[in-house]
């Protein structure tokens, strides 16, 4: 029932909130109410009320009652910022049969009572604000929400623990998931670890069942050794192009027997899975429990591709699965939602030259240590020095390498304290060596984390509070000869110490993927200057982004531990399922639209749209805005030199009317 009065101005109801005393303390609400009824009566205001808390159910009922009984056609609520309660009052209108877009909020709290102290001034300003809102709302048109169908398939980018969790949740609910992973196998960083804190569960033991489940799930299509190259469309209707890099292995024929790997004569340093600490063959699967089990050939290092000889893998393959002629393949899929779980990269420890990584042989990074400690790793689980054989008698573990440091990365990487404690425990358990741990703070906030710290204290690790100044091999005396010396201030004792150790482990920080910015552009999500994906709200909405239909999960949004990544993966999946179950997505009708007749085809707006929502029709030489993608930001409206674009809900008439109202006291000679 939103019939417009044909005869005169539409009937407007004005509601002025006291907001407890937040507003009424500075604005004379009674005066504004009286004034609105009397003075603005000529403009169409038929009723004006004031109430202590408009947003309460009683307050809303006032509006609902008036709409029904007085036949109100417009509503103005003068209260707090629309950010807070625009939806509330629009809901009240909707419930009473009035189109919600015929309700406007006038902020007389954030914009008046909270920024002024002079009561008289504030009251006058409140009147002007109300007048502006009244004049504007009269210009409002009823708008209908846009409904878009949702394609039930989902794309999950990134096959780490967060991505796997998300994929399984959606697949188990009965919907199809495409799981795209850049490496030959899913598993992500977690597959590289030895034990996980605080339970000391073996990482592979808890991860691989999930990996197999994902690999064998009827609803999950794995696209490993693949990357997304193009994304078009909008929520519910994405068209995604995926490049499948050539494995040079025919996966229909390959049984995963591994003979090719065995027979390959060439070894290279494995700087991905083994973190540069071990070797792999040129045809390889990254690790034994890889999912899928199909190997790939590393073409730039392959003797056949470089020189045209060898082909040992092809010779020995029992099923003729090696195919050197394979080319990269592009597939295009349709999905309704996307979850980005692309994970993290690690800080390059060579940058901290005073720690000597890369120059001093026995300085290791945390990921190198994980591989070393792992029984399936390059040393068979033996903790040894760089010579591959000697067991260290003293080990120093350094926190905060490349984190909490304005010279490198400002932020805290969240997991290094626990990781360092874990290393201390493992080293002591395996070797009985003396372990020193160097920290600035001990960050052990989550469940059972501080208890783990207590355990490590009990086990006899020596803690020194101080950020290590340098690791050096320049000995000053006999005691230091042949050792690595950790020079640090023991801040609690207040003295500089030089501690000779055999091995140093650097807990390096997490960084965003080095192509995170490109990825964020590809998917249209925001990316901070550091490179982490930006969530819609840091507190209340950690898995959505400002782009409807694209979710983020796991370390791609910021450093976090495994439970948090899993939780985010599941949360993102829940969001997606929420959308899929609704079958349609409802979009706000505040959109821009182009008046074709006025459009000159200059295309200035095309490049400006942050959401890629503007298409250009070559045949007609005009631009068109896709309402599903348009977020109503207004950039194109302002930029169009012909004034051909107007924003629904923000038309020129509406804005000018609001300005008129605000300046009601100003008499300008024109």
């Amino acid at each position, binding site marked *: 029932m939103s019939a417009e009065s044909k005869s005169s101005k539409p009937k407007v109801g004005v509601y002025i909130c006291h907001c407890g005393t937040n507003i009424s303390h500075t604005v004379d609400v009674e005066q504004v109410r009286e004034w609105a009824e009397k003075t603005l009566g000529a403009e169409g205001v038929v009723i004006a009320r004031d109430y202590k808390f408009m947003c309460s159910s009683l307050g809303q009922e006032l509006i609902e009652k008036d709409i029904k009984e007085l036949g109100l056609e417009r509503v103005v609520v003068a209260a707090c910022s629309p950010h807070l309660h625009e939806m509330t009052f629009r809901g009240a209108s909707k419930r009473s049969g009035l189109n919600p877009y015929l309700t406007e909020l006038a902020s007389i709290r954030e914009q008046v009572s909270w920024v002024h102290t002079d009561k008289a001034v504030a009251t006058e300003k409140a009147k002007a604000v109300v007048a502006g809102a009244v004049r504007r709302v009269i210009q409002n048109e009823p708008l209908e929400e846009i409904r878009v169908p949702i394609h039930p398939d989902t794309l999950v980018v990134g096959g780490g623990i967060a991505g796997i969790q998300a994929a399984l949740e959606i697949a188990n609910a009965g919907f199809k998931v495409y799981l795209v992973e850049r490496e030959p196998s899913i598993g992500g960083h977690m597959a590289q670890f030895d034990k996980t804190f605080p339970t000391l569960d073996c990482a592979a033991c808890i991860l691989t069942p999930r990996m197999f489940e994902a690999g064998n799930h009827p609803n999950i299509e794995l696209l490993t050794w693949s990357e997304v190259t193009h994304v078009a469309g909008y929520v519910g209707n994405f068209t995604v192009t995926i490049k499948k890099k050539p494995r040079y292995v025919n996966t229909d024929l390959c049984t995963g027997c591994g003979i090719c790997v065995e027979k390959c004569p060439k070894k290279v*340093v494995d700087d991905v899975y083994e973190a540069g*600490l071990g*070797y792999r063959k040129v045809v390889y699967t990254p690790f034994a429990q890889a999912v899928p089990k199909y190997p790939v050939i590393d073409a730039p290092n392959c003797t056949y591709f470089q020189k045209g000889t060898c082909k040992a893998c092809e010779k020995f393959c029992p099923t003729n699965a090696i195919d050197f002629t394979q080319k990269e393949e592009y597939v295009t899929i349709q999905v309704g939602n996307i979850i980005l779980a692309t994970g993290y990269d690690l800080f390059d420890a060579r940058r901290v030259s005073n720690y000597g990584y*890369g*120059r001093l042989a026995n300085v290791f990074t945390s990921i190198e240590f994980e591989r070393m400690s792992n029984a399936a790793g390059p040393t068979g689980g033996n903790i040894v020095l*760089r010579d591959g054989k000697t067991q260290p008698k003293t080990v120093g573990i350094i926190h905060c390498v490349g984190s909490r440091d304005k010279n*490198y990365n400002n932020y805290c990487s969240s997991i290094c304290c626990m990781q360092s404690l874990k290393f201390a425990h493992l080293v002591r358990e395996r070797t009985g060596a003396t372990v020193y741990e160097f920290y600035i703070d001990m960050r052990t906030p989550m469940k059972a984390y501080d208890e783990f710290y207590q355990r490590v204290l009990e086990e006899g690790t020596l803690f020194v509070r101080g950020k290590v100044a340098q690791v050096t091999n320049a000995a000053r005396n006999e005691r230091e000869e042949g050792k690595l010396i950790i020079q640090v201030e023991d801040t609690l004792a207040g003295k500089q110490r030089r501690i000779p150790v055999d091995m140093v482990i650097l807990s390096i920080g997490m960084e965003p993927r080095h192509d995170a910015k490109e990825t964020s552009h590809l998917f249209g999500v925001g990316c901070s200057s550091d*490179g982490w994906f930006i969530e819609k709200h840091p507190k209340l909405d950690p898995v959505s982004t400002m782009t409807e239909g694209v979710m983020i999960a796991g370390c791609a949004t910021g450093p976090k531990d495994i439970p948090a990544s899993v939780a985010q993966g599941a949360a993102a999946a829940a969001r997606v399922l929420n959308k899929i179950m609704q079958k349609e997505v409802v979009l706000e009708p505040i959109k821009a639209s182009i008046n074709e007749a006025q459009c000159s085809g200059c295309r200035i707006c095309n490049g400006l749209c942050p959401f890629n929502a503007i298409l250009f029709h070559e045949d007609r030489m005009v631009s068109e805005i896709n309402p599903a993608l348009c977020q109503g930001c207004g950039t194109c409206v302002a930029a169009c030199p012909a004034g051909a674009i107007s924003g629904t809900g923000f038309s020129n008439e509406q804005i000018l009317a609001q300005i008129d109202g605000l300046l009601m006291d100003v008499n300008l000679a024109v």
Partner: protein
Amino acid sequence: MNDYLFYPGCSMESSAKAYYDSLMEIAEPLGINLKEIEDWNCCGATEYVGINLIPAYSLIARNLALAAKMNNGTKTVVAPCSACYLNLAKADYYMAERPALGEKVNQALEAGGLHYVPGTLDIRHILDVIINDIGLDVLKSKVVKPLKGLRVAPYLGCMVPRPDYYHRWSDPEHPIELEEVLKAIGAEVVDFPRATACCGGHMTQIGPETAYELIRRLISSAEKYKADIMVTVCPMCQMNIDAYQAETNRHFGTHYHMPIVFFTQLIGLALGFPPEKLGFGTEITSTKEALARIGVEVPEAVEEGAPRRKKEEGLPMPPRLLKNVKGKPRNAEEAEQ
């Protein structure tokens, strides 16, 4: 010919005369034209700033103002002495970073009819100029007597690679610049871990025990890694290690003999200039024995010294990072350049 404004600094005319002489000899063949700043004054070293801030920076800024006034077709000032280089660079940087400082310093300068707008000049070190403006290829091409057989420990000291406000150096702790120059002139560079450790600075005058320990650490390390000679860019470092080596030995009861010269002197030798013209012979710790090695065949293998792992034994090491730019994270491929 590249033109530069030249700030010699007080030491170049006295204790570091060898630096000055050798620099003057090699400048021409390398295509470096140095025009001395007219009537420059002392930069105050590390002494004036500890007394009174504005006078200290005004003292430095007078030189900047005078240099800025010179019409040489260049705004680059070259200062070979570490402390002078740092003082000039810091004054320019801080006057911009802290406008209040810039204002006060300019008020003082105005009393002498001078003014300096921070950012006008580009303050560079001679080593930086040789590598980045002239280029190692040009340097290599001018070498007539490569210093093959001479084992050199490159000692850059503190105040050139740090604090590096203008991001000129590859790394503040283990930079490769001096090493590259030495390799270009054919010398064998020793893997010297204390390349940027402190020589003690003015502690040789004020607190000699502190200084002796710092000097001892340096020369014992150079000796351990079997260097014949140390090479430096800083007059203070050269003086401390050269002139106070005897006292250091006396203090510890040791017998180190580690000669130290300026890198320009070795470049001069490689370019074919006679040692007398390069200030050789003015050292307190004699270079006779070290120089005798040049041109003499040295056996390939090194028995002890720098701990080197033989190839293919043990676990692989990460590749070397050549340029350490602070700021945005870089991936391995980028960093390899």
